[in-house]
Each structure stands twice: as C-alpha cells, then as structure tokens.
C-alpha cells in the first residue's frame, strides 16, 4: 500500500529596477510523490511583484500577481464498509492479515462473498481514480499617497479567484460495494471561490519633540462568494473514460442528488480607528476601536463593537536604569482587548430556508420534495473574547539572554457551537447558537541564550513553553427567547463540554474487567444495575481532557563560519486520546473476521458493548521535527555565481511517546472527531537535499 515518495522543488527568481520602479518575479515547481500508492501532488507557482513611485515619491504603487496551479492524484480519504469507514491505510490495518490481494488466478482482486461489502484496500488504491486540479489567481494593488506632512491616504484592493475541479471514478474492480452494484460510478465537482477585499485608510504619523503619534482610520470591505456544481453518473460499459464522459453512463440510473449546484456568499465590513502614542520612546499607549458587521449573523445582530487598549513601558530607557549593566532591554506590556469571532459559521445559518430534499410521490407522480433545511436562529451574533495580558520582554548580558514572559486570561462569551435542542419542537436536533462561555488562561515563556558567540561561531539555545488552562464556565443561554439549559455537549468520542471542566473533557465509562463470557464489564457508578451510556449518564466518570495543557519547543542552532546546523524539537502533553482504532483491533470475536493486535490475546476480551476508559491513553509526545545542516560557499572569483548553499534536512525524525497508536498528533479533521483516533493518514518522515545557487 505504501512506497517511498520523492519530492522535488525547483525555484527560479529574478528581479531588478530603476530608482522609481522595481520588480521581482519567480516561478516554482513542487513535485511530490505520495507515500501511498497512486498519490501525488504537483504544484506550480508564478509570482510577479512590481513597485512604482511617482509624484516625487509621494505616491507609491505596489502591484502583486500570483498564480498557482495544483494537479493532484489523491488517495481515497474515506472509504470502507458500512461498519467501518476510514482512510485506505487504516482499512488495510483493520482487514484480515491472511487475505490475499489477488485471487488464485493472480489477476483479479480478491474479495470474500460471505462478508457484507467486502473491501480490498489494495484494489481500491490501484483502481479508483481520484484527481483534482486547482487554479488560483491572486492580484492586489496597494496605493499610498503622502498627502500632507505625515498624513497618508492608502488604498488596497485584492482579488483571489480559486477554481477547482475534482474527478472521481470507482470501477467495479475496486471491490467497493457501491461500484460493483452500480457497475462503475463517476462524478465531477467544480467549485469556484471569489474573495474580494478592499480597504481605504488614512494614517497620520508625527513626532512633536518628545511625543510621537501614529493614528489610523480604516474602512474595509470583504466578500467571499462560493459557487459550484456536481454531477454524477453510474453504470458504465467499461472503465476507459473514467469520470471524463458522464454521458456514457446509464441514464436510467440517475438518482436525486446526482445533479446539484450551489451559491452563497458572506460579507464583512469593518471600521477601525487606532491611535499609537509614545512619549520619549518609553511610554507607549495604543488604543483602538473597531466596528465589524458580518452578513452571516441574524438581522438584528450583525454589528459588533470591539475596543482594545494597551500600554507598554520601556523600563531600560528610564534614567534610573542608565547605570545598570544587566539589562540591555526591559519592557513591560499590559493590554486588554475585545475581539469578535465568526468562525465556524456558514452563510445562511440564521434564516429559515426551504431546500430540495430528494423526490416524493404525490398526486400520482414523482415530484421534487421540499423541506425546511435547518433550525434557523435569528439571534445568531458575534462570539466575543475579552482578553487581558501582561508581558515582559527582556535582554540580558549583552543581549546574549533574551526572553519574553506573557500571562493572559481570556473569556469567550456567546460561544458559537452546535447545540443540542429538543426534538420536538425543533425539526432537527442541533442548532448553531451563541450559548455559553469559556475561560482560557495561559502562561507563555520563551527564552534564547547564546552559549557561544564570537566572530566565527554562534551556538544558540532557544525554546518556548506554553501552559494552557481552560474551563467551560457556562453552557446555558437562550435561543429565540427560550431558555436553553445545556450541559454535557458532545465534543468528540466520549468527550464533552461540561460546565466547570476543561473543553473536551472525557466523561467515560470505567473499565473493570470482563464477565464469564469474556465480555467487557464497566463500573456501575450509581449502582442501579443499569449501565447508562447516555451523554449525561451517572455511570460516566471524568477522566482528563482531549486538549493539551502544555506545549513546548526547543530550537538549538549552531553556526560556524560557513556551516550552520539547526534542530527543532516540539512536544505537548497533558491530554488524552481515545484510541478507537485500538479498540477495533482488540476484540477476540474479530479473529478470522478482521485484524487483531497481539496485545488482545493477554487482554482476553471477547467483545464489548461499551467505549470505556480502557482505550483512553496519554497523548504526550516529544518529536524531533526538523534537523537542517547547511554549508555556504561564497565565490569571489567565479564570474556568474555569487554563492552556493548545500543543505541536508530531515523532518519528523523521531517521536517519543507512550501512545500506542500510529501518531499521538491526530489530524483533527476527517472521521476522527476531536480527541479520538479512528486511524490517520500517517505523517511522513522525509529527507531533503537542497541546492541553492545565487547568480550575480
């Protein structure tokens, strides 16, 4: 299923100009082969940047044009039988290790007719076509006009257009049940995205003796429009045309949903005013106020006001610090701000809409069925975060020791989330709403120390560590004027938002052993003889959280003359992972049906009705993310070449962890849910050899 993948990156860039005009252009190609068979990704990028000054340098125009083309052949992301869906690699882990790839004839792919929807992952990897093309064009123009004595008028506009086309074809020989049933199934989806942004700013910069002021007023307008269509056909005589000729499919097999299109958009308008004031470069005050309006919110709640202010004190510039030799830099920062968030909210969430929902039979004929599409929430409004932070920046010992300390506390109110609502009366059981608040607290420290620093050699030890603590303060509020008292909001497998607990707290049944039939037993906490598996069950126990409580990185760098070496270690911990994949591979009932781990034998569990804390593991890890060694050659005598750099890079070299799964750093997307491991596409280890040539 896997192979070694090679990646090539080629870049050519050049630039030039005159006193009032300069440009820079580059073109790159990144050609990647995937580590799963039949996957690759080729990316081509072209860039031009031009700058022109005019009117005695009072007007400066900057123009940017980027274009990117990506062509990819992708491994299938989500596939499987009705009972188990994951990526191809995970499917290969789970299947019976004794099954052959081919039938005895050596050419047709093996399947087992006694297994419902048997999937041969190798056949799927070899025969499914899954291709994508993505073109994107980005252009921007920035104009700054120096109007009068520190007053600058700016205009900025940008437009990004992204077009993507994905084609997918499953032939019957892929062994996928749907493909066999339909005698091949092909689809094409086209998606277009238009992102426009425009802002106008007026800024004023002036120094009056010891005072300096910098003020900005800005208006910004952003719009994103999403459009696309999808078409699907089934029933092909042969597999030659794959997805390229849908009309060759069997038109009698057209189903509702085989054709669709969509269009929606969102607009964000912002007004921002900001003033920076500094006195003697010692006392710095910043105050800002922004008013944002977003189309995605309910009609009465589209606008939000977000003020912020901060003060900084450059202590080392005070006269009383003049004689000390310890600090080269010492700065104290204090800030408070309110920010708004609209992430996680899609267009049209606030309004009650009717959409197509398949076909129904009524009045003697088949007609399009219409249905209310969602629980509307006209009250949707900005999620707000109020944050206070205090920080110190310092440099000591001739700036050989540098660092910053930051502590912050932030309260998020009107948390945007999918909340469970009662059905009845709602037609659907979740609603996007602003309910609840969350407290985040943290401490961030970063330090760097030059252990050796002389003319030829620098050895720097740098690192940072963050401690994070969060707590769900409240999950109740109201929707459409009705009080909504929620708690134990599902977040991931057996993890929840629970009042008074961190986000993603595991609230899970406790494994106690097995009964006479070797079926798993769990603790009946309330002793009522019934194991309640509901979200608010009293039989569940709180057991850690899915989010790390600390993250850290260590980054030593060494340079000696033309040689440089750097390393990056990265880690996090304090979180737990629900290893669902291990649970799938650990029941002895699966012997002869699916793969079973060695560790399942001593465990001796035949089956289980529960998802217990037996599968909950510590998610801490330390990863050597990167090692790079490079050597620079400088040529003074060669005619065309100025310098040359040779480098060797290794990525993801090792992970130290107690986690038993493939990788404790889960891809949070896909079928995993938060804090659960249902199998991931493995993170690759790569080695790169680099050659950079700089021409004269």
């Amino acid at each position, binding site marked *: 299923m896997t192979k070694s993948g090679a990646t090539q990156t080629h870049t050519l860039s050049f630039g030039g100009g005159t006193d009032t005009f300069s440009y820079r252009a580059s073109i790159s190609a990144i050609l990647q082969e995937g580590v799963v068979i039949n996957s690759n990704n080729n990316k081509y990028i072209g860039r031009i940047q031009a700058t022109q000054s005019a009117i005695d340098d009072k007007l400066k125009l900057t123009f940017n044009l980027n274009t990117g083309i990506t062509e990819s052949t992708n491994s299938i992301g989500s596939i499987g039988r009705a009972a188990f869906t994951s990526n191809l690699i995970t499917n290969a882990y789970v299947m019976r290790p004794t099954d052959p790839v081919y039938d005895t004839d050596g050419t047709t792919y093996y399947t087992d007719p006694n297994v419902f929807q048997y999937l041969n992952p190798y056949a799927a990897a070899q025969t499914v076509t899954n291709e994508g093309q993505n073109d994107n064009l980005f252009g921007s123009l920035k104009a700054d006009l120096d109007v009068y004595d520190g007053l600058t008028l700016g205009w900025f506009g940008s437009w990004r257009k992204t077009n993507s086309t994905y084609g997918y074809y499953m032939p019957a020989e892929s062994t996928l049940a749907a493909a*066999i049933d339909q005698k091949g199934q092909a689809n094409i989806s086209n998606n277009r995205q238009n992102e426009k942004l425009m802002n106008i700013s007026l800024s004023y910069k002036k120094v009056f003796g010891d005072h300096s002021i910098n003020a900005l007023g800005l208006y910004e307008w952003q719009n994103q429009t999403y459009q696309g269509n999808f078409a699907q056909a089934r029933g092909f005589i042969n597999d030659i045309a794959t997805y390229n000729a849908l009309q060759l499919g069997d038109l009698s097999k057209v189903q509702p949903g085989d054709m669709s299109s969509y269009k929606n958009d969102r607009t964000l308008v912002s007004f921002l005013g900001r003033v920076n004031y500094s006195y003697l470069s010692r006392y710095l005050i910043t105050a800002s106020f922004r008013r944002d309006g977003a189309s995605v919110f309910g009609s009465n709640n589209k606008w939000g006001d977000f003020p912020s202010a901060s003060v900084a004190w450059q202590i080392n510039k005070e006269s009383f610090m003049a004689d000390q030799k310890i600090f080269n830099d010492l700065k104290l920062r204090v800030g408070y701000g309110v920010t708004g968030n609209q992430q996680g909210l899609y267009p049209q969430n606030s309004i009650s*809409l009717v959409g197509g929902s*398949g076909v129904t039979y009524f009045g003697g004929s088949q007609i399009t069925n219409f249905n209310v599409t969602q629980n509307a929430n006209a009250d949707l409004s900005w999620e707000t975060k109020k944050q206070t932070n205090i920080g110190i920046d310092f440099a000591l010992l001739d700036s050989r020791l540098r660092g910053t300390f930051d502590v912050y506390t932030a309260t998020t109110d009107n948390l945007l989330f999918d909340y469970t609502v009662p059905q009845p009366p709602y037609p659907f059981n979740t609603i996007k709403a602003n309910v609840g608040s969350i407290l985040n607290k943290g401490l961030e420290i970063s330090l760097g120390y030059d252990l050796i620093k002389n003319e030829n050699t620098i050895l720097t030890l740098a690192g940072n560590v963050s401690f994070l603590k969060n707590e769900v303060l409240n999950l109740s509020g109201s929707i459409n004027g009705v009080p909504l008292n929620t708690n134990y909001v599902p977040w991931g497998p057996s993890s929840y938002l629970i009042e008074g607990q961190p986000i993603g707290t595991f609230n899970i049944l406790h494994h106690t052993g097995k009964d006479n039939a070797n079926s798993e037993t769990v603790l009946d906490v309330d002793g009522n003889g019934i194991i309640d598996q509901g979200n608010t069950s009293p039989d569940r126990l709180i057991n850690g959280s899915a989010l790390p409580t600390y993250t850290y990185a260590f980054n030593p760098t060494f340079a000696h003359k033309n040689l440089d070496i750097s390393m990056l270690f990265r880690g996090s911990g304090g979180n737990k992972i629900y290893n669902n994949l291990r649970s799938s591979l650990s029941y002895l009932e699966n012997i002869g049906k699916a793969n079973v781990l060695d560790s399942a034998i001593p465990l001796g569990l035949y089956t289980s009705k529960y998802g217990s804390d037996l599968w909950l593991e510590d998610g801490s890890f330390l990863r050597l993310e990167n090692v790079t060694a490079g050597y620079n050659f400088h040529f003074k005598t060669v005619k065309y070449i100025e310098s040359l750099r040779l480098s060797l890079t290794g990525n993801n070299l090792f992970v130290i962890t107690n986690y038993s799964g493939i990788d404790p750093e889960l891809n949070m997307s896909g079928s995993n849910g938060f804090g659960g491991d249902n199998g991931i596409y493995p993170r690759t280890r790569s080695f790169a050899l680099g050659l950079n040539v700089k021409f004269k």
Partner: protein
Amino acid sequence: MKIKNIVLTGILSFLLLVGCTNIDEHVYDKYPANDFYGTAQGADVALASVYAQVGGNWDGVGYAGADRGWYDLNCFSSDEQVIPHRTTGDWELDFARMYKHDWLPTDSFINNTWRWLYKSIFNANLAVNQLEASKAEPSKIAEAKVLRAFFYYLLIDDFGDVPFYTDNNITVDQIPQASRKVVYDFIVKELTENVETLSATKGGNYYGRFNKWAGYSLLAKVYLNAEVYTGTPEWEKCLAACNKVSEGGFSLHSAAANASSPMGNKYYELFGDVLPDDETILAIFVTANVVSRNIFTVRSLNGPDAQTLFGYSGWNGTIVPKDFFLKFDDKDIRKKQFRYGDQGGGINYSIDVASLDNPGAAPQAGVRNTKFYPVTPSDGGGASNDFPIYRYADILLMKAECNVRLGNPALAKPFVDQVRQRAGLGVLAANPTLDNIYNERGFELNWEGHRRQDMIRFNKFLLANEFRGASADYRKLFPIPTAALDANKGLKQNPGY
C-alpha cells in the same frame, strides 16, 4: 491648497463608505421558508413533504426504511424476524438485542424512530397550518390532520406518554409530555372529525395517500389497540370502522397460479410494483434510489444467492426465526416467500441458527424471505416494491378478532376462512379462537410491520423464546431515547429503563 486636498479626500472617502455598508444576507440557492409556504403551491408541497416522511430510506427514516428505523424496531422486537450477528463479523449486536429484548435507551433504533416521528409531526403541523392559512380544499386539510394523527398513533404505540404539540411556533417549555390517553383521545377526535372529509378515490392521484378508506383503517387500528393504550377496549367501534372500510368495495386479491411471476402466484402482486387496489388500502410508493427503497429481500439473502438471482450481492442479514417459520403449513402459498435448505450453487440455508450474538450465526444459517421479491429498478441498495401499510386481509382479520372478543366467534369464522382459503388452506374445523386469529395474522401479515403490536395485544410479546427467557412487562414500551431526555429535562423516562 493642501487643506483643500484633505477635505476633498475626506468627502470622497465618506461617500465611498456610505455605499459599502450593506451586509444583508443574500440567498441564491434556496427559498426563504415564509415566502415559500405562504403560497398555494407551497401548501401543496408542504402536504407532499409529509408523505415524503412516510417513504423509507437510509438512516432509519420512514415507515419501512433501511436499517434501524421504525420498521426494524417494531419487527425485530417481535418473533417474525431478526438479524443475527454473523461469524463473518457482519451486523452489529444491536440488531440481535432487539430480538432478545435487551435494547438500550441509547440504541439508535429508538432514537431514529423518535426523531423520524417528530420530524414527521413537524412537517404535518406545517402542512396543516399552511393549508388552513391558504384556505385549501377541506379534503387536503383533513388529509394533513389524518397524517398527523397517524404519526401520533405510531408514537404512543411505541413510547406511551409523549410530548404533544400541534403548532410549530411553540417553545419546548410549552410542550408537555402528554399521557397516552390524552394523545389517544386527540387521535380519535382528529380522525372521527376528518376521515369523512377525505377523498373516496382509490388509486390514481390518491395512490399512496390517505383516502377515506385508509383513514377508517387507521381509526380501526387505533380502536383495535384501545385497551392497550387506555385500558378500555373499543371492539364495537373498531368493528364499525372496519365496516366503513368495507364500503370502499375491497376484496381479497387473487392467489391464482402465475407462471410468469418468480414467486409462481398472483398473491405476491400484493408486494410487487404497483399494489393492486382490490385489496390494498394504503401503500408506500417506491422507485428504488428515487423515491424510498424496499430493502427487505436484498437485506435477507446471502451475498452470492442474491447475486445469482438478481445480479447484485445480498446483505446476508434478516432471517426468519425457526419457531415462527415452522408454524407455516406446507400447503400454504404464503410459505413460498421463504428460502430454506439447498438452493444450489453452494447455498444451503439451515433452519436452525445456533447463535444470534456471540459467536454469531454461520453465513448461511437461517431461513430467508423473499416476500418482496425485487421488482425493477433494483440494485444492492434496494428494490422498487411498494409497501402495504393497510390491506383488506388485515381488515378482515380485525373484524374476526373483534367478533371473537365480543363473544361472537361464529360471526368471525367466515372472515378467517376467507383469508385461509385464499392462501390455499382449508376452512377452520371450528369457530376461531383468539390463538387462531393471532396465528393467522402472523401468516398473512408477517414482515408488514404489524407483529409487535399484535403480540402485545394478544399477550404474547413477553413470552420466552428460543433465544431468551420471558421478558419483563416494561419492555412493552420502548424507552424514551436518552438523547431526547438529555435535550429536554422535562421528559420522564418510561418505567423500568
């Protein structure tokens, strides 16, 4: 000069801003709900969308939907069918739990059924509301109300005391969990007030819809089970409603031999494409993959067996438990629906099933069923057989039951004999007993969604069987799904769970 520049720039910027603060939401690819349903077409569509709920589909949606919906909940908890866990690893244990009366309040069958029914009631409320607002024909308003009563009847049948509401613009704190009796009274009132207004047309535009005869059949069903719901039997009223159905001019469909049918008999047309309107009172229209789907045969047959018969693989799921199967008489044409023993091609279905859950049933263990022998279009995702909700054979057996229960078994006999003779059996030697009727209902109406209700009414539901001991009385109601209890703290769980 320069001051003037600044002023001009300021004015210019201000003008730009005024034009660009519009952040109204645009909808390009859907219809705003209020504008849409306010129109006459919108009201019609609202009624059609209630019927869309009746048709079955994936995720346990619909009256006869695919996997873990109302049909599976009400059929697998009875004695007529079950999906065993297989030694191949197929079919999760929750299917077997239904048969073993071990279901949990968190089981998806229960939550799916609840959600389907309340989504249906939401759609029905919307339809009633819009049809009334747009002053639609009285027969359409009556139709929407009868549909709503149908869903409430299914709710109290499974769950007992349930949240009750008829107006969608209401908040959860105003929806009480009404007693089974209160909802029963509402259903009876809605039906008696509206059934007469329904269209009397059979078939055509009314195929798959509640006409007058389907309405009276529903009313008869509600009365038939009145004792279970309220403690007070209503046999006379049930009989009267059945007699009203008979005014529709129904008869039993022929069971003549038919060489061109794969089942060899015209009887199976009752489970085929367009259900014959001599006997069928209310059907679900199915065109697989377009409107609803009928999975009952493909779900039952072993993979290669279905492959040989229809050209696509079977799911190797549902079987007919031995005790149920063995009751059938060999002469009974209704026994043709079963596939058991050697079928050739290496398929040999054993009548015995060693285990329903662990270690599971062997791949070819268990009697299979092809009552709904697939009609085209069909594929591995299901066939296009329509599904009978009410048919006249059921009404005849209801008449027989009411008469026996009212102490007139002699009046009951012709009804039972009629059904038996159509199936190729002889008349009963004596007047029917309740057991005769109970068994006959099993033979005639198996796999049509009636069995759990019948078993409860005849006090058979809790009896021990091959795979479990006697079950506790509280199992006669399903639990309110845990998810519903979590979302609405005002709900009370049924006793025992």
